[in-house]
C-alpha cells in the first residue's frame, strides 16, 4: 500500500523502530531554540554532565521577550532580560549558534528558519514552541516539543515518538483560487472553525487540493502555522515547484549538483495515489469569505458578514457554556453584527502573518489612508530581514504616514511577553494565532484576522474588510 507524505518523512528518519510498547526513535535534522523553553533544558544537560550532540544542527534566536522599540538598550524587564541573557550564556557554553537581538538574522524562530533556507522538504524540524508546525509548509515534519524533549534533542539529536495518525484537509475551489479579499489566514480559520480546536488531535494534517497548490510559500506557512490551533501535532504541504523556487539561492539551501540531487529527492515527497489517510476533511473554498474570531479560542470564528452567535442556539452543552463564557469575556452581545465591533488596537505581525507578503498586503490597503482616531496600530515585522526588506520597499513610510507604529522584529503583541500588551478590557484585531483569554495582556480581548482585515479595521475602527473601504 502507498504511503502518505508524513509517513515517508517519518520512515526516512527512523533510527530504530520501537518494539512493543517502546516508541520509535526519530532523527531530528534541525533543532530551533529560543529563550523561553530552553533554559531548563540546558540546565538539565549541565546537571547530568551532557553536551549538545550536534551544534551544527541547532540554532538559537531571541524572539519571545525582545522589545520592539529601543532595541539598542538593555531589556528593561528583569525576567525577560534574565531569559535572554541565560540563552546567550548557554549558547556560548554549549557552542550553539545564536542570532541575538540586533543581529541581521534575528527574528521569530519560525520566520528565521525558512528565510535562511534551513527549513527544507523532508526534514524533521523541532522547536520548543507549538507553532513549529509552520515549517511543514515545505513538506518537512515539524512539530513543537516540551522542555524535557528540548533537552533530549540537544543531548541525542533524536526523539522517542509514537507514530502520528494522518488527516487530509482537501481545500478546493472551481478554478483553484480564493475569492478577492480572502487569504490563507481565512482558509485556516475556517478549517479550525469546521473541525474544532481538538479536531486534529493526534494527527499530522496534510493540506491538499488546488487552492493549496496555488498558494505562495508564505501563504502556505500561515496555514501550517495554525495547525496546532486545531490540536494537530503538525501540518504539512507536499513540496512542489513553488517550494523549490522559494528555496533556490537561499543561504542554507543546497547549491550546484547538490541542488539537483535535492530537488530530485524532494519530488518523491508526495502522498502516493493509493495511500489512505486515517481521516479526510473537505473545504469548499468557493464559499469562503474573510473570517474573524469572536470568542476566546481560534475555533470560535465566523465570516465577517455574520453576527455574534447566540449561545442559546448552540446544541452541544460544552460548546454553549464555552460560548457564553467567551461572550462575557469578550464583552459582546449575541446577534450584534461582527462588522460593528470596535477595536482599540490593530496588531500586524507574528509567525503567522509577519512576513513580507503580509506586510505588503496590509500596506496596500492602508496606503493613502489613515488609522482611525482612537485606534493604535502596531506593525511588527517577523524578522530583521523582513524589516529591512520592508524598509527598502518603503512600507515603513506607508505605515507611518497612515499613523501606525513601525517596530523592530519579534513576537511582540502575539503573546505580550514584552511591553507590547493590551490593557484590561482593550480589544484588538490581530493577525496572530491565539485569542485565548489574556494572551495579549491581562484582560485583553483578541479578534484573530488576516492582514487585509487588520488594515481595513485600522482605517474604519471596526472589524472590516478592504471592500468596506470603497
Amino acid at each position, binding site marked *: 500500500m502507498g504511503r502518505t507524505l508524513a509517513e515517508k518523512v517519518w520512515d526516512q528518519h527512523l*533510527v*530504530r523502530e520501537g518494539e512493543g510498547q517502546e516508541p520509535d*526513535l526519530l*532523527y531530528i*535534522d534541525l533543532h530551533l531554540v529560543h529563550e523561553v523553553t530552553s*533554559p531548563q533544558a540546558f*540546565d538539565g544537560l549541565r546537571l*547530568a554532565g551532557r553536551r549538545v550532540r550536534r551544534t551544527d544542527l541547532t540554532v538559537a534566536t531571541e524572539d519571545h521577550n525582545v522589545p520592539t522599540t529601543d532595541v539598542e538598550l538593555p531589556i528593561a524587564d528583569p525576567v525577560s532580560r534574565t531569559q535572554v541573557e541565560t540563552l546567550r550564556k548557554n549558547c556560548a557554553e554549549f557552542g550553539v549558534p545564536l542570532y541575538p537581538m540586533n543581529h541581521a538574522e534575528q527574528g521569530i524562530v519560525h520566520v528565521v528558519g525558512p528565510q535562511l533556507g534551513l527549513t527544507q522538504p523532508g526534514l524533521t524540524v523541532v522547536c520548543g514552541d507549538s507553532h513549529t508546525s509552520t515549517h511543514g509548509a515545505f513538506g518537512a515534519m515539524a512539530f513543537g516539543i516540551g522542555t524535557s524533549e528540548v533537552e533530549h534533542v540537544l543531548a541525542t539529536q533524536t526523539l522517542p515518538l509514537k507514530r502520528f495518525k494522518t488527516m487530509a484537509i482537501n481545500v478546493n475551489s472551481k478554478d483553484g483560487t480564493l475569492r478577492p479579499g480572502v487569504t490563507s489566514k481565512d482558509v485556516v480559520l475556517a478549517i479550525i472553525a469546521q473541525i474544532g480546536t481538538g479536531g486534529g488531535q493526534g494527527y499530522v494534517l496534510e493540506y491538499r487540493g488546488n487552492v493549496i497548490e496555488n498558494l505562495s510559500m508564505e501563504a502556505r506557512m500561515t496555514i501550517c502555522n495554525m495547525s496546532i490551533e486545531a490540536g494537530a501535532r503538525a501540518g504539512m504541504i507536499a513540496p512542489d515547484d513553488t517550494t523549490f523556487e522559494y528555496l533556490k539561492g537561499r543561504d542554507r539551501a543546497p547549491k550546484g549538483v547538490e541542488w539537483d540531487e535535492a530537488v530530485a529527492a524532494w519530488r518523491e515527497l508526495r502522498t502516493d495515489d493509493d495511500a489512505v489517510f486515517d481521516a479526510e476533511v473537505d473545504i469548499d473554498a468557493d464559499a469562503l469569505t474573510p473570517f474573524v474570531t469572536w470568542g476566546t479560542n481560534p475555533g470560535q470564528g465566523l465570516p465577517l458578514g455574520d453576527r455574534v452567535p447566540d449561545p442559546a442556539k448552540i446544541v452541544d452543552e460544552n460548546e454553549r457554556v464555552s460560548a457564553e463564557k467567551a461572550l462575557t469575556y469578550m464583552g459582546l452581545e449575541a446577534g450584534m453584527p461582527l462588522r460593528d465591533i470596535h477595536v482599540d488596537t490593530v496588531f500586524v505581525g507574528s509567525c503567522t502573518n509577519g512576513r513580507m507578503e503580509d506586510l505588503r498586503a496590509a500596506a496596500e490597503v492602508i496606503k493613502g489612508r489613515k488609522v482611525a482616531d482612537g485606534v493604535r496600530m502596531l506593525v511588527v515585522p517577523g524578522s530583521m530581514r523582513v524589516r529591512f526588506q520592508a524598509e527598502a520597499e518603503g512600507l515603513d513610510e506607508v505605515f507611518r504616514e497612515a499613523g501606525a507604529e513601525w517596530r523592530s522584529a519579534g513576537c511582540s503583541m502575539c503573546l505580550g511577553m514584552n511591553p507590547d500588551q493590551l490593557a484590561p478590557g482593550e480589544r484588538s484585531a490581530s493577525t496572530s494565532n491565539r485569542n485565548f483569554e489574556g494572551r495579549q495582556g491581562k484582560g485583553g480581548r483578541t479578534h484573530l484576522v488576516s492582514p487585509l482585515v487588520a488594515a481595513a479595521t485600522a482605517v474604519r475602527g471596526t472589524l472590516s474588510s478592504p471592500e468596506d473601504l470603497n
Partner: protein
Amino acid sequence: MEPFKTHTGIGVPLRRSNVDTDQIIPAVYLKRVTRTGFQDGLFSAWRGDESFILNQEPFSRGSVLVAGPDFGTGSSREHAVWALMDYGFRVVISSRFADIFRGNSAKQGLVAAQVAQPDVELLWKLLENEPGVEVTVDLEEKTVQARDLTVPFEIDDYTRWRLLEGLDDIGLTMRHVDEITAFEATRPGRLPTTAQV
C-alpha cells in the same frame, strides 16, 4: 536518574481531589531559568494557610504524598514534578493521575503509584491517626506498606522497568547511541547545517 527500588519516608495525607498543576505550582514560578529550587513554589497558594498539612510537623518532612483522585490535571508544565521532587517527594499516591502528569513523573523519576480509592482512604486514616508514620513503597513488589497495612499499586511495566533501572529518557536513548551514529553516517551531505561561517 537514580534507580528506584524501594523508598521509605513519612507519608503525607492530602485529602483533596483534582489537584491541578496550577495548584501544585502556579504560573508565576514558570519564569525561572533553572531546573532546581522549585520547592518554595510547591502548593504555594495553600502553604500560606497555617493549617495546611505541609505546614505541620512532621509532615513538612514527608516524602510520600497520598492524594485524592485526579492528581496533576491541567497544564502540562513539567515544573509540577520538579516542585514535588525538589521539596523531597519521591512518590505520589492517587487513585487516578492525569496522563501528562504521569508521563512527566516517569521522565523525572517520581513514582506515580496508582492505588485503589478504598486503600487510599485506609492510608489517609492511618497517616492521620499516627502522624509521622513511615510508608515503604516497593517498586519491585508494587506494594505500599505502613505499619501492618499493605496495599498493592499499579504502574505500567515499561515505566516500572525504567524507574528500577534509573533510566531517564536520555539515558534510554543513549543505549542506542551506536544506532544513532550509524544513522548519521547515512545522512546525505547536502542536508543543511546551522554552523556559522
